[in-house]
């Protein structure tokens, strides 16, 4: 037992960002302890058995943001990171039984799209190319610490200058386009560029996945840009299914952290963070045990960190008001179905399930689905992102069986007319009904189902509001303003306490970037002489 040891750093939460942060700190020679409440490391990025023999990624099921530098720095490939499938195509299911498949291969997408709109088929490649270029300009800042707005420090000035230069390097036309579209809503941008509902629907879904907004809400373009800012396996905006599910990603991270000498402890929920003389000095576990360290890092979301683990009494009221104001009203449900076989329609037509299936036939469909959520109702007709991970990774289901992993937008955390249990039944029934129209024998093939509403996600993964991204990815909550303006550099109003989770820049998604950035800032402070 190393219970009496004093650590350089304690990381609260063994989610992917906590593990990335730990691995970086451990590699730098710090003595690090990770405390995870659950029995399994990984936070919300885990693969769980939801029915005997059937396993699924509990929350996010596709990888598109994991930063290549994190993969390289932590040698994740050596630690077991592998991809079961890359460049997954997207197949949109349309109301009249038709469908549109957008593949990674532009020529194939073009042919498919031409049937709906020759104009769009013509326009898509150039649009994608330009959009990715604009997103890449933002992507350069994923692994940077956002500057302080006053830019008093030399480092902050440099980052601001780099930011300005990065925009300038885009050239005048692209720079203007980026400043124009960054605050726009996806519906306007799509209407400007395309005419087919099928294509616009797919983009509209991507513009709201995991968030509390519709395609007609400003910020939806920003969400699209953020998605495209990532670059895994050399592909921008490419969809990847990690081998072994999302849990395998965190397993590789945990292995990297262990190899760097980090101590990982599961089943060790932190009850609160001890503050003495305005400084974080240690953590107290639910078991009552107290462990001290020089730096405390929280990968929990900002609301949980400040309002529960620290407590408002240690913070000034203005700051507490801002923290309370962070939007984290989760709106996506996750549904896992254990099937004893693929539905006939899908067996006969392997192209259908080759990648992800989406049900988002038009912008208005998406927007109406969101309208329900605005008033605290589960969408009557939810929008869906469906994958069949067992097709690419047979270890996830018994022979012959398959797993359906479904993200359903929108099932709001804040319900008005109904209780959580009823909402859970509603979303499950509506999802099955929607899929039943395209695969009539699907309901008969379901052996078991797991439905995770935002309430369930909050309970099981300690995500406040059940929000995937630890706070909405909206312009008033990103970059300089994440989590709260003035505290975007991973430090908090409490000395010695840092944030290293998705609630900090750059935000949600399995990117590892907040963890890596927080580690860099802690290491900077670690070199400073210790305060007496």
């Amino acid at each position, binding site marked *: 037992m190393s219970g009496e040891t004093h650590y350089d750093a304690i990381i609260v939460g063994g989610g992917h960002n906590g593990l990335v942060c730990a691995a970086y700190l451990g590699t730098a020679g710090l003595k690090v302890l990770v405390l995870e409440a659950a029995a399994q490391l990984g936070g919300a990025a885990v693969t769980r058995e939801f029915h005997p023999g059937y396993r699924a990624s509990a929350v996010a099921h596709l990888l598109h943001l994991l930063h290549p530098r994190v993969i390289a720095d932590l040698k994740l490939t050596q630690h077991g990171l592998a991809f079961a499938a890359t460049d997954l195509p997207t197949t949109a299911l349309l109301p009249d039984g038709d469908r549109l498949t957008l593949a990674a291969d532009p020529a194939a997408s073009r042919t498919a799209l031409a049937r709906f709109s020759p104009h769009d088929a013509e326009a898509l490649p150039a649009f994608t190319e330009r959009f990715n270029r604009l997103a890449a300009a933002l992507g350069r800042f994923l692994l940077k610490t956002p500057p302080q707005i006053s830019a008093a420090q030399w480092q902050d000035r440099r980052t601001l200058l780099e930011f300005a230069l990065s925009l300038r390097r885009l050239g*005048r036309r692209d720079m*203007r386009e980026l*400043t*124009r579209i960054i605050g*726009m809503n996806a519906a306007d941008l799509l209407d400007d560029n395309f005419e087919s509902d099928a294509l616009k629907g797919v983009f509209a879904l991507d513009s709201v996945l995991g968030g509390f907004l519709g395609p007609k809400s*400003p910020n939806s373009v920003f969400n699209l840009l953020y998605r495209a800012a990532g670059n895994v396996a050399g592909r921008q905006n490419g969809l990847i299914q990690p081998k072994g599910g999302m849990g395998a990603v965190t397993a590789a991270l945990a292995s990297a952290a262990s190899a760097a000498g980090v101590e990982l402890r599961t089943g060790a929920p932190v009850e609160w963070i001890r503050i003495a003389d305005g400084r974080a000095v240690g953590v107290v576990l639910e078991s009552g045990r107290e462990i001290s360290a020089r730096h405390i890092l929280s990968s929990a979301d900002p609301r949980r960190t400040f309002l529960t683990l620290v407590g408002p009494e240690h913070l000034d009221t203005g700051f507490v008001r801002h923290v309370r104001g962070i939007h984290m009203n989760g709106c996506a449900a996750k549904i896992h179905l254990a099937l004893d076989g693929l539905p006939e329609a899908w067996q006969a037509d392997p192209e259908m399930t080759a990648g992800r299936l989406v049900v988002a036939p038009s912008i208005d469909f998406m927007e109406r689905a969101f309208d329900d959520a605005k008033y605290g109702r589960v969408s009557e007709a939810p929008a869906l992102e469906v994958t069949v991970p067992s097709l690419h990774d047979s270890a996830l289901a018994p022979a012959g069986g398959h797993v359906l992993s479904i993200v359903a937008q929108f099932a709001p955390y804040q319900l008005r007319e109904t209780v959580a249990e009823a909402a859970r039944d509603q979303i499950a029934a509506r999802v099955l009904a929607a899929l039943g129209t395209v695969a009539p024998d699907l309901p008969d093939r379901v052996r078991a189902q797991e439905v995770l509403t935002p309430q369930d996600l909050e309970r099981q993964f300690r995500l406040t509001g059940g929000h995937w991204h630890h706070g909405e990815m909206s312009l008033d909550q990103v970059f300089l303003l994440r989590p709260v303006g003035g505290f975007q550099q991973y430090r908090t109003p409490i000395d010695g306490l840092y944030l290293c989770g998705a609630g900090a820049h750059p935000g949600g998604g399995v990117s590892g970037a907040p963890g890596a950035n927080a580690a860099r800032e802690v290491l900077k402070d670690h070199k400073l002489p210790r305060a007496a």
Partner: protein
Amino acid sequence: MQRYDAVIVGAGHNGLVTAAYLAKAGKKVMVLERRHLIGGAAVSEQLYPGFTYSSCSYVCSLLRPEIMRDLDLPRHGLQVNPYETSSCPTHHGEPLVMYHDADRNRRSMSRHSARDAEAYDCYSLEIRRQCRFIKPLLMMTPPDPTSFKWGDIEGLLRLGRTFGQMGERQMYDILRFWTMSIADFLDEYFESEIVKALSAGSSIIGTALGPRSPGSAYVLLHHYMGEVDGEIGAWGFARGGMGSVSKAIAGAAREAGAEIRTEAEVTAVIVKGGKAVGVALADGEEVYGTAIVSNLDPKRTFLKILPRQHLPEEVYEQAERFKIRGSSGKLNIALDALPQFKGLPYDAHCGAIEIGDSLDYLERAFDDYKYGQWSRRPFLDIVIPSTVDPTMAPPGKHYMSVFVQYVPYKLADGPWTDEKRQAFGDTVIDTISEYCPNFRDLILHCQVRTPWDLENEVGLTEGNIFHGELTLDQLMFNRPFPGAAQYRTPVRNFYMCGSGTHPGGGVMGAPGANAAREILKDFKGRVLS
């Protein structure tokens, strides 16, 4: 043939402001107006005997005090009477009346929520702080962040300095405020739905945003940055209706020597050798000038009066993509007597009355609009100027202006027709009648205007009252679009001075004054010759 220094297309209030400033600087100016009356959307019209309607814009606050002074508008007949209240009747209990006077306001608000009454000071302080940043920007030409010219770099630095002087905390708050939704902002201060609804009204007027759409907080600021007699955030009625504002500005322009012609519709800008040299009128006449200035909205300016071959393809595309959504309608009603709104004290009838008592009410009104229909239960901003201005209606009778948000320009079920206009008007009157039971009996005359009517009568594309959405992608150096935000256009000697340019819509005059400054700069620098 006569040749002018400047020919201004459109005698809206901004066109007149530009004309007045140019004329005062000694330029020979001609203003050409398509309609029989000047003022654009700031007009007073007699559409029913004895009544004067402010038929489009209806209240006054945003007109910049600098312009009021420079042009000496009070001497030219402008008088603005501030009003003291805004109120919100409701079916659920007592109406909310908010007063301009802080003490009365606190007492009145605390009948709904003591906490909100306390929080109001904090809230209004915060809004004023936001205004402090934006005010100096109003009368400035937005610097182009992609330019390497000294003027632009200096402008950016100045902007940075103004921003930097706000203090660190405030800088973050500004950044956040400009990007957040009004619902989120209000949620941080207030608990009572009716307080939030009444406060949110100003942030949705004229836009295609709902109270929960990010970006709507800024629109609130846009309505809050005005003042009447130095009272910040105050609103008032122009004596004689909004046409008096235009008349006063026109008076100042004429006094300085500008000519103003009505019923002179410009159909095209004449471009020779890549330079705008004049305009062609509908009757075939041509008017020549050194600077040609368009007070029309960006769509009309670039897509309608400028021959396409003179515009780079990219700019044409930008103009096509410019967001200019009609979202508002208007009812002008002559009443036989003062209507009595349920539970409202008399003095509340002299101010603004808003129908829409919760954020959900406003949001649902917006939902209908999103899918191409007018709100089944519309949000209304009602004023009865005749309560304080006897020139608006005969004694004992009243003129009521009803502004309706949200009304689509493009209806989902096809174009506007007379029947639909009638049905839309009935929806509004029925809504008012819920709060004012005998309302229908008092109506002597009612003019219903849809966005389609605003487009066809006043010339506002899609009926958008601001000449273009006030969203981040169309503000400051993005207004109307990047590269054309300094009142100049890609065609030499062709300028813009309307609400489609920085700082945007409202009867503010700032775009007109800024444009005049840039044009005079070009005269001086011999760019214009």
